[in-house]
């Protein structure tokens, strides 16, 4: 069979991404239509930069969602005929073309790139979210109380920030450390904080209304406990969620990201706590956690959302770096960083294997940065 021409490859890739194109058009069209009612997210559609960013992020998010439909082959299966073959080569048995060629083990580069997005999209946003919660839970009291609480928590954050990140990851992900209790212990602390965070939010808001309190608190506690036991692998009968390695990566990402969030939240809190509405809530006898979570935090959301976007980007790069050093989710997986590392060895001869995942990381991070820029620009207006 004849190899595909450049034009055909291009067309083939575009066709493969059909579900993604439809998704982007539907989501962005609907959002632009209802933008008056969507506050900050709606105003994003007034900023070209923000829209480009959102489109790029949506592209990868939807790619991860529809990976099964988009990918042409199994990302792990090795076809001897495809070994280091250029883009457009056909795999004779199935008659499917390897749109972006094959890598040094004869796996389809295109499918590996598509499946790589799944790993990133599973870990980066969720880990950032958890890190955000951990950072907020530490940052609020540090900024609000000041004094010794602040000194202690800031010291802790500085300690983590000062430690070389890659070295830390090596330590956390190496088999010797992994077999100890350290990762599980860390996970049990890290995952406890979001649950406490949610419970504190509900309780501080609703304790004045005991009749409604339990409707919210009880489900929150039950769901929290269920997720908690699953995540730290204490009780995991269904076997879903993360495997041990994924958990380690997840916890490590949270561990190094949360101190940065902590600093931002602490600074914002110190500013917002001087406002009159905080004094007003103090003079009606509100407790410190209500003031922190319901008076201060909602007004810090703007900068936090922008920061979260940027931080998902950093986490994506971090995951890539980890994969590159072989600390990825699993040694066989289609992780982008790991693919780049494998492609790197024959880069001069066969650049097609390493380029697609590299471009993928670049476009996703670029999209997140542009999105953050757009959000910041729009939130500063009026």
């Amino acid at each position, binding site marked *: 069979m004849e190899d595909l021409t450049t034009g055909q490859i291009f067309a083939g890739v575009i066709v493969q991404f059909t579900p993604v194109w439809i998704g982007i058009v539907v989501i962005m069209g609907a959002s632009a239509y209802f933008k008056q009612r969507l506050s900050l997210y709606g105003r994003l559609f*007034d900023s070209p930069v923000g829209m480009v960013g959102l489109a790029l992020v949506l592209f990868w998010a939807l790619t991860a969602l529809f990976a099964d439909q988009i990918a042409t082959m199994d990302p792990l299966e090795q076809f001897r005929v495809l070994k280091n073959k250029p883009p457009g080569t056909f795999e004779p048995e199935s008659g499917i073309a390897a749109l972006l060629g094959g890598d040094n083990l004869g796996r389809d580069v295109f499918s590996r790139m598509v499946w790589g997005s799944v790993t990133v999209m599973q870990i980066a946003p969720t880990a950032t979210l958890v890190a955000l919660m951990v950072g907020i839970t530490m940052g609020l009291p540090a900024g609000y109380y000041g004094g010794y609480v602040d000194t202690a928590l800031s010291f802790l954050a500085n300690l983590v920030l000062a430690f070389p990140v890659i070295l830390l990851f090596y330590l956390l992900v190496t088999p010797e450390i992994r077999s100890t209790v350290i990762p599980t212990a860390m996970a049990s602390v890290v995952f406890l904080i979001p649950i406490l965070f949610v419970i504190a939010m509900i309780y501080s808001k609703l304790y*004045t*209304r005991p009749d409604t309190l339990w409707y919210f608190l009880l489900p929150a506690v039950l769901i929290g406990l269920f997720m908690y036991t699953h995540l730290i692998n204490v009780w995991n009968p269904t076997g879903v969620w993360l495997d041990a390695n994924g958990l380690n990566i997840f916890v490590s990402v949270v561990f190094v990201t949360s101190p940065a969030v902590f600093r931002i939240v602490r600074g914002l809190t110190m500013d917002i706590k001087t*406002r*009159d*509405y905080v*004094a*007003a*809530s*103090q*003079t*009606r*006898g*509100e*407790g410190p956690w209500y003031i922190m979570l*319901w*008076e201060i935090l*909602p*007004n810090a*959301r703007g900068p936090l959302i922008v920061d979260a976007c940027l931080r998902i980007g950093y986490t994506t790069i971090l995951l890539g770096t980890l994969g590159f050093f072989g600390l990825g989710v699993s040694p066989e997986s289609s992780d982008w960083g790991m693919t780049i590392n494998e492609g790197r060895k024959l880069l001069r001869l066969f650049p097609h294997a390493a380029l697609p995942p590299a471009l993928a990381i670049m476009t996703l991070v670029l999209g997140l940065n542009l999105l953050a820029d757009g959000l910041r620009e729009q939130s500063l207006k009026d």
Partner: protein
Amino acid sequence: MQTPDYDGPILEIENLSISFFTRAGEIPAVMDFSCTVQPGEAMGLVGESGCGKSTVALGVMQDLGKAGKIVGGSIKFKGRNLNDMSEDELRALRGSEIAMIYQEPMASLNPAMKIGRQLMEVPMIHEDMPEKQAYDLALDVVESVRLPDPKRMLESYPHQLSGGQQQRIVIAMALMSKPSLLILDEPTTALDVTVEAGIVDLVKNLGEKYGTSMLFISHNLGLVLETCNRLCVMYSGEAVETGSIADVFDKMRHPYTQGLFRSIPLPGADKNSRPLIAIPGNFPLPHERPQGCNFGPRCTYFEAGRCDKGAIQMAEVAGDDRHASRCLKFDEIDWDAQPVVANKTDKTEAGSVCLRVDDLKKYYEVSASALFSGGEKRVVKANESVSLEACEAETLAIVGESGCGKSTLAKVLLGLETATSGGVLLDNNSIGDTQIEQRDTRTVADIQMVFQNPFDTLNPSHTIGAQIIRVLEKFKFGNSNADREQKMLELLDLVKLPRAFAKRKPRQLSGGQKQRIGIARAFAGGPKVVVADEPVSALDVSVQAAVTELLMDIQRESRTTMLFISHDLSIVRYLSDRVMVMYLGHVVESGTTEQVFAPPYHPYTEALLSAVPIADTSVQKKNIVLEGDIPSAMNPPSGCPFQTRCPRKKNVAGSLCETELPPMRTLADGHQIKCHLSQAELDLMEPVIVLTAAE
């Protein structure tokens, strides 16, 4: 560039229109604005926030930013049209012939440069003056703005000076090039009253001394009366009335000007017999301006079919000197008619003592160094033996400038701080040592506060209704959500806001409306005592009156004790029953309003009374300008706290003022004063404010 033989008007603005171009389209900020400033004349530009007065000033400076554009009319400076000038020509004018002074002095000074350098730069750039000569000139000018020790001043950095000193430096900088036109944009708004009086005095004298023309922008009519020869009242982008001070103040010919004067507390106004009359309604947003007269919807003389017909032109008032009004009906209105006072009320009788503060002291400890806390500790004495008694249904005003300890007192009363010593009794329960967390619900609900800044008092993230309901929940009001919902709606009725506001976010409300919500929140739990910390000082004049009246009404009905913290003596005289004057943590004078506002005074009260500008041409004031600034509470002067600035210190024998803290003396029943002056001296005091012309 200088044209010394030019003798026409310094500034001629003709039919100026300025618009801002935003995403929402064109927003006209100034429309058809004309005014003329003659040499040596001081022109006041008065109006509420958003009326376009600052935009006019920026238009004169040709500094409207990216979005602003002059869309019509001309601005002539000494006969030359500024609109046609190139950037280079403008640069030569700015700072040399036209100088501008802004509200915030620190923002106008470069924090990284010494004062002397910044001053010398002006003539060195504009006139190529040699450095030595520029230094001498700077020394000269700093002296003429009456700053002590000019040599040391030139060697300091801006942050080493106080706010008042900084503003004097900014004025000095403007004077370095001997400008023909000085634009002052609210130059004293950020300063304390006594400091403000000094600056106003300085500006007035400089106008006389150098013959500089001035464009003085302010929202304060009293300040304009003191500094200007002519004024122009602006409303919603238009000049509505212009003329000489005497004409506009005494023979106003526009309903808005009249409304403004009726809504500010002048001497003679009284909360019971002559209440303030607020201008109804709200200031229109630029894109919601009505057809015809902009003031139409709020005007009592409004005539449908005539006032809302088309654009209204300025018309000369016959017989006056360049007095014009933008009103179709000014010849028909009876301007001398006294307003109908709808809600005359009787004086409420004060009840039994409800709040008693006894010898309260509040000290803060500040470590000398943050890094090595082992060092010496310094003590800030925020409150020094404060005693007061407030009765039910009574308004006690606490007067003083920033740093006098009035806010600390409020914090102790509310339980945000605990007293170092002394007692606070609320209905015979001691609360001085109880932090807010330890107070029971009733006590917390009993003493509440109305905050100063309307833009800060409500949480921007929650709806109005949710915020009020939360207060009710905290105060354990009602048994169900429906109860509280109902009470919340009633509270909205109480502060005269539509019930639909419950669903709104604070950013959809105007400043006055937010302040009303703040009042509703404070009164939600049926408090015994409400501490109002300058509740109207950040609001526009026409809104101030409405909010003040509302506060008074609610207080009258609920018989709440109110502690009214303010630095504005006009409003204090208007609404309070008793007054307490504080200075550097000490109560220096206390008594009934009549006693405090009539001699004998404490010298500080006397200076404070003289410093507050009053917008009434029939008022004669003694001019007492205090030297220097308020000392730091970290390092208070020995003896009497006021001795460093007291103009009457020389009348006390020996060094008594410097060595000994004066005791609290009782002059008349309930009138107390903390001063060393002899009884004979006190008896000689004359009233500061005299109404000359009988009305």
